């Protein structure tokens, strides 16, 4: 080999080595940047960015926040802080709750609609693990009790009967692919029409109807699995809401053209006393104290959301919450002072709540906070402005620390999270046609409902 050729080859080798070193340096630098800036909190597992529906890389972004602490554009951030609004389930959800594990870590536990598998999710950074893998297909809805360890699944069998099954999550001490299994389960009566879980998660009130059309309200005590009948009434169209083991609010099922009533029922004395009288389109969402409720009413063809406040003059006095929505799109803070709601800027035409229940109309909700003490409202965010999505909010609940609102989008049953408390951007504010605490704007925003 000629010396010139050797020198040339030596030079090529050096060049290649330099390129390799440069590539390695770039990779290391990239890794460092990813580790410290793009990865979130840097803990093992990392965020499951694929379910975040927005971001730098085709929806996989988990951008850190801006230096203002407010998420960039409200949907992601530049310093690893959690977004304002993000999707947290990988699958359509039949029900969800907040679960605190023995180590004190908070998770959102949800049940997948398709197979009935249970998942735990750390909301941010997103980390999801499957808790059970037993298949219970086509779940319609599911509720949790006992800190997420008891589950009541509900589905319709092939002949159209509502089946209700109570199961317990049994954790697998040996570990493995999944954290636990579902207990054999107990079949509750067929055709349980409606049910409600107590706020402490230890009791369930459910209603069945016998062949004579008589409603039977039963109380299931989850720790003991005992069932006792606490309510019998010849009228059965009730929507129950448990405030405590002794107190259940019963609201008649609503239609926009018929009057409804709301009652408080005390299971220990069997006393049924009326709290809301004779309102068309009446649906309710009572606060944990039971002294307040948001309720809907159709007044002269327009749909309104109003406040029932027992502590104010001792009777129900309607206040304007500044926006109009279905009360079941709302959830109350623990102290019963604030409610967080999904509410549309405009209502599509149609009789409410009938058309919404029948799936004939859907909403594109904004997220509102309502201070029932001050009677003030504030729009917290718009999913359209934040993420370009239309969300029809159902089954909302607050995290225990009150920082996050979780809800299911009715359209596709996906579970979402919304960070409460950050100020609105200008873009979000301009998205709404309603202003807070503005009585005049309510009638503008509410839509005239039509008789069917």
């Amino acid at each position: 080999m000629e010396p010139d050729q050797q020198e040339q080859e030596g030079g090529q080798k050096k060049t290649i080595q330099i390129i390799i070193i440069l590539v390695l340096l770039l990779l290391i630098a990239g890794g460092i940047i990813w580790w410290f800036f793009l990865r979130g909190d840097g803990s093992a597992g990392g965020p499951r960015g694929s379910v975040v529906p927005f971001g730098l890389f085709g929806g996989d972004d988990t951008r850190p926040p801006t230096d203002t602490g407010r998420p960039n554009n409200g949907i992601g951030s530049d310093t690893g802080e959690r977004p304002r609004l993000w999707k947290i389930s990988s699958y359509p959800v039949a029900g969800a709750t907040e679960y605190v594990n023995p180590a004190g870590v908070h998770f959102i536990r949800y049940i997948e609609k398709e197979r009935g598998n249970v998942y735990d999710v750390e909301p941010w950074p997103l980390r999801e693990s499957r808790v059970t893998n037993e298949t219970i297909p086509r779940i319609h809805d599911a509720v949790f009790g006992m800190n997420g360890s008891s589950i009541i699944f509900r589905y319709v069998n092939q002949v159209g009967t509502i089946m209700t099954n109570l199961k317990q999550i049994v954790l697998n001490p040996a570990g493995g692919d999944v954290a636990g299994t579902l207990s054999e389960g107990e079949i509750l009566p067929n055709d349980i029409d409606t049910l409600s879980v107590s706020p402490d998660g230890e009791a369930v009130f459910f209603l069945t109807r016998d062949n004579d059309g008589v409603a039977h309200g039963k109380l299931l005590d989850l720790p003991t699995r005992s069932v006792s009948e606490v309510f019998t009434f010849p009228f059965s169209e009730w929507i129950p809401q448990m405030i405590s083991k002794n107190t259940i609010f019963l609201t008649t099922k609503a239609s926009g053209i018929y009057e409804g009533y709301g009652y408080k029922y005390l299971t220990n004395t069997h006393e049924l006393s009326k709290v809301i009288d004779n309102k068309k389109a009446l649906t309710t969402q009572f606060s944990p104290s039971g002294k307040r409720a948001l309720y809907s009413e159709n007044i002269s063809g327009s749909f309104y959301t109003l406040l029932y406040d027992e502590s104010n003059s001792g009777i129900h006095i309607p206040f304007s919450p500044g926006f109009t929505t279905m009360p079941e799109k709302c959830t109350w803070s623990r102290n019963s002072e604030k409610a967080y709601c999904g509410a549309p800027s405009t209502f599509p035409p149609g009789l409410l709540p009938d058309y919404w229940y029948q799936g004939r109309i859907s909403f594109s909700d904004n997220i509102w906070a309502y201070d029932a003490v001050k009677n003030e409202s504030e729009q917290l965010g718009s999913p359209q402005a934040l993420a370009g999505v239309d969300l029809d909010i159902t089954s909302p609940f607050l995290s225990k620390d009150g920082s996050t609102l979780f809800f299911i989008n009715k359209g596709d049953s996906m579970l979402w999270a919304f960070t409460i408390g950050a100020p609105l951007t200008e873009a979000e504010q301009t998205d709404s046609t309603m202003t807070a605490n503005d009585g005049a704007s309510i009638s503008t925003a509410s839509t005239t409902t039509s008789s069917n």
Partner: protein
Amino acid sequence: MKNFRALNYVLLTIRISMVVTLISFLFFSHLALAAGPISAITTPNAPGPDMPTTIRLQSYIVDVRASFIVWVVNGERVQEGVGSVEYKFTTGSLGSESRIEALITAPDGATSKESVTIRPALVDILWQADTFVPPFYKGKAMPTHGSAIRAVALPQFGQSADVSKTAFFKWSRDLSRGLGEGTGLSMVNTDATWARATMQLGVEVRSQDGSYKAARAVPILSAEPQVQFYEDSPVFGVRFEKALSGIVKSSEAEFHLHAVPYFFSSTDRLYNKLLYKWYVDNQLVRTAGGINDDITILNTETGSKDHRVLLVLQNSAHVTQKTGGDVGISFSE
């Protein structure tokens, strides 16, 4: 002989007339005494709590318009004057009691007293129609012509506990037609009127001792049955959250359509009285009684990818309960 018989008939008629007149005199004179010369009329007849109410004095014997009248409520003078025949007030809350007295001094100096005790009471009418809605439906089942309606009266008398077993109930429909009355008759069954017409369902209720009374009437508008279509997903089940209308696009090999016959009589549906006529692309593909809520549309290799599905529904037990609806299914290539 004939004249004698005719005379007997005349005498008999006169005797009967005299007896009837005497009985009538005794009866009505007793009634007048019992009622007194002045009566106090309360409007509304059975006022509820916090309700504007009027008491008016009437008499065919005493000239109350020329009388000096003092109104006293629970021992306190609240109104007085010549011809003050009317007293307007708002009733108290549930459980309250107001004794209202009118002290009347007639122009001739004769005095009398009328008193009324108001104990506001309430009665709610809760009613439900026996019409079909799908499982988990959170709304009210609407009544349709001929469908059964069950109504329950829920009286509240002061602080008393459940009084339904001891109270007296009198039910009516459209103010005139009685639907039943009796002690403890807190529930009644009837049927819905014609579509788009309204029935007034009323109840009057009073306590065993008559001290409490309440009344209420509710309008019940009859709706028309309707059909809505939903996708019956093999994965998720029937997707009640979204009713299908217009044209639905599908990329699958088949589309499972589920129809919900809203507000047909439940019992009739259960006893297979509903007649389903399914049409696909204007061809009748199935006529069947019973429960035939589902149809599968296939995406065939050949032929059109767009299909129009029409369902006509009729209740053979209540022929006015009928409806139809259609939806388009468009398969992608």
